[in-house]
């Protein structure tokens, strides 16, 4: 086994790969070779470090130097300074990791300080394509113990006692699900993993699969043992090629090592698994639709009951959990149910991974204990709102969730609190919005999404969401009426009550929650024909602020329809709102900020 004095960890998550981390990795390998450091320094491609905003990221151990926003040419400096001469390149370090001239451990940086990593514990630490690194950090120990030392009933009991709830959205107690599947009658059972992460702005499952694929294999094997299955399916969306590739490598390695296949750990237990690719249908994240898709059908939901635990894939009892849920299980087995249930709140145990995005300084992935407040997540971990803008709302739960306004920012995050606020946990997307975002527009954005993704099977969802979208379009265009606002609410409630599956039942949430918290914005659109955030194009009017106008005429020169009049150096300019096409060109061109929209 080779020993190295330096490990260079290069983030291979999708965010960093999109900003050239692979070229950075290549350059490191190249230069290490050229500088004859091959036997001293090792380059390791890992999963996501979480702080995507600062990508591409490289960490050099043992110093723990956290280099951020690197360019390929920066690698030359790091190799010649840090690796050859041992001088940390302070200029390239993530700026928050330097305090009073001294480099801090990354665990003391604001973004990481309040985090507690259970599901993500190996992400950014191990090389996901090397099974030995997973094993080094206790990998497959839980599976070994379960198979050699525990009965299926004991395994289910631990999962029940831990209080783990489904991380995919609904929050159903995981142990109960396992119990139902175990007790279902059938000669053949399946376990399946839902990795069809479709919520826009959510990428925690992808990060687990990319950064720590073996944990899913181990956990599914444990689940299979507990419920009496011998075959597993992982359903991943095709938009995640890196995740698919790494999981396939992991499956092959586990097979080679006998951790998948016949008689694992020399017991009677045999288990095999395969990957099935999604093909771009959001509704397939719904469990019965996912099952249809695995069978090779259109991904349309089935009525429940019968639940998948009784009649799932190929009509056999099937246990279906989400990626993050599985990622928690081996740690629960190793550290015990009490340890897990000591984290979190009374009814929501453990940690939750969130993908923080939108108008926030530290875009990225964070794992925090349940019960952390929204404020801590957004300000302490997320670093607050950029450009000195005011926080307006945070959207959780994707198209099934809602917008939570500033008044509730001190709410501790757990399943029940979020539902009470008219939103939901969902898979963990957390999109922050500032004063420049229009809430009518946001509601419209999500409705547009559901209309397109509705599978068309049941009328309330297929037609109802379409009608809701039309009303929102009207309101955004300035032709909405007071009746539209009441109709929206009535229709939303009908869709919630009458839809077949979770997609339809939750589709109205973005509208209901914005109506509830931001009625004043809807009313401004309807009564005053005004969009307070300045987003809805049809309602915008561009105006010259007379006192600020320096009579330079730049705006008039830029205007593509010649609707700005005035005389250079003599009179202030004036915009003819009748002819204005609201292209924003004048506002961008004015050097004196003398043009406003509203």
């Amino acid at each position: 086994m080779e020993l190295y004095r330096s490990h260079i960890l290069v983030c291979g998550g999708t965010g960093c790969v999109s900003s050239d981390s692979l070229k950075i990795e290549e350059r490191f390998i190249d230069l290490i070779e050229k500088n004859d450091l091959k036997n001293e320094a090792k380059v390791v491609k890992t999963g996501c470090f979480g702080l995507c905003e600062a990508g591409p990221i490289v960490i050099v151990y043992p110093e723990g130097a956290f280099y951020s926003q690197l360019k390929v040419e920066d690698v030359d400096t790091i190799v010649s300074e840090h690796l050859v001469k041992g001088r940390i390149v302070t200029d390239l370090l993530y700026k928050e990791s330097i305090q009073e001239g001294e480099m801090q451990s990354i665990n003391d940086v604001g973004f990481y300080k309040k985090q507690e990593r259970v599901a993500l514990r190996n992400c950014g630490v191990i090389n996901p394509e090397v099974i030995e690194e997973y094993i080094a950090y206790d990998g497959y120990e839980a599976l070994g113990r379960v198979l050699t030392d525990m009965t299926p009933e004991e395994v289910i009991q631990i999962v029940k006692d831990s209080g783990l709830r489904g991380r995919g959205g609904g929050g159903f107690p995981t142990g109960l699900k396992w119990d139902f599947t175990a007790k279902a009658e059938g000669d053949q059972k399946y376990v399946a993993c839902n990795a069809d992460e479709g919520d826009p702005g959510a990428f925690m499952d992808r990060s687990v699969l990319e950064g720590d694929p073996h944990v899913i294999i181990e956990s599914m094997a444990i689940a299979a043992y507990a419920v009496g299955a011998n075959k597993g399916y992982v359903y991943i969306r095709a938009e995640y090629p890196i995740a698919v590739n790494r999981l396939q490598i992991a499956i092959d390695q586990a097979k080679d090592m006998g951790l998948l296949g016949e008689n694992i750990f020399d017991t009677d237990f045999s288990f095999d698994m395969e990957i099935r690719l999604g093909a771009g249908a959001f509704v397939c994240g719904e469990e019965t639709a996912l099952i249809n898709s695995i069978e090779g059908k259109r991904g349309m939901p089935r009525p429940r009951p019968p639940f998948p635990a009784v009649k799932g894939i190929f009509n056999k009892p099937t246990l279906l959990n989400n990626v993050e849920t599985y990622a928690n299980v081996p740690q629960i087995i190793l550290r015990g149910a009490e340890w897990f249930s000591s984290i979190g709140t009374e009814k929501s145990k453990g940690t939750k991974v969130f993908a923080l995005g939108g108008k926030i300084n530290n875009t990225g992935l964070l794992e925090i204990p349940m019960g952390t407040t929204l404020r801590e997540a957004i300000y302490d971990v997320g670093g607050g709102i950029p450009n000195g803008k005011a926080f307006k709302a945070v959207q959780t739960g994707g198209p099934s969730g809602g917008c939570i306004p500033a008044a509730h920012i001190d709410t501790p995050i757990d399943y029940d609190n979020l539902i009470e606020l008219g939103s939901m946990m969902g898979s963990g997307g957390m999109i922050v919005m500032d004063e420049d975002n229009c809430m009518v527009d946001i509601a419209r954005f999500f409705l547009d999404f559901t209309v397109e993704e509705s599978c068309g099977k049941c009328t309330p969802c297929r037609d109802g969401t379409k009608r809701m979208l039309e009303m929102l379009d009207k309101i955004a265009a300035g032709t909405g009426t007071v009746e539209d606002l009441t109709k929206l609410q009535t229709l939303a409630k009908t869709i919630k009550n009458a839809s077949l599956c979770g997609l339809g039942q939750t589709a109205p949430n973005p509208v209901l929650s914005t109506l509830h918290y931001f009625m004043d914005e809807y009313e401004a659109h309807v009564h005053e024909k005004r969009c307070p955030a300045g987003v809805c194009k049809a309602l915008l009017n561009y105006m010259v602020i007379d006192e600020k106008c320096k009579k330079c005429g730049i705006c008039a020169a830029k205007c593509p329809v010649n609707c700005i009049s005035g005389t250079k150096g003599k009179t202030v300019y004036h915009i003819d709102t009748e002819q204005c096409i609201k292209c924003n060109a004048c506002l961008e061109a004015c050097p004196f900020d003398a043009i406003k929209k509203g």
Partner: protein
Amino acid sequence: MKELVEKVLTEENFQQLDQQIEKVRGTKGPLMPVLTQAQKIFGCVPYEVQKYVSDELKVPMSDIYGVVTFYSQFSLVPKGEYVVGVCMGTACYVKNAQPILDKISEIIDTKTGETSPDGKFTLEATRCIGACGLAPVITINEDVYGKLDVKDIPGIMKKYQG
């Protein structure tokens, strides 16, 4: 469009498809994996390919057509030389992805979801690609452009217009 479809229906492509079908023959629920491969090989799943799969897997044509038209990853006609994907995930949307999409549509004179008449560009509003740290993001084939402003778009598109 018809000529474009005929161009991809080569014997070589069908041979490749055959190999993929053999790999999954006998497994349960093989239709989706086969169609995924077909999309990869041909760049689309037109009538002729659907018919072939139907005969080979003994799955009714109606089922196959249903599946192909249900999932957005499958297309009936080939895509352009450059597929421009504008991420419309929430993180990108709140950071002004819509004006970027509008601008690209204007530059290549192609509506969202369509291919330009010369077969050069296909414009797609894609679902979240998960690079939220780079929002707003567009992809042009394998190239990724992030942290964009509408002003950056003409320069980027110029590189591909050739």
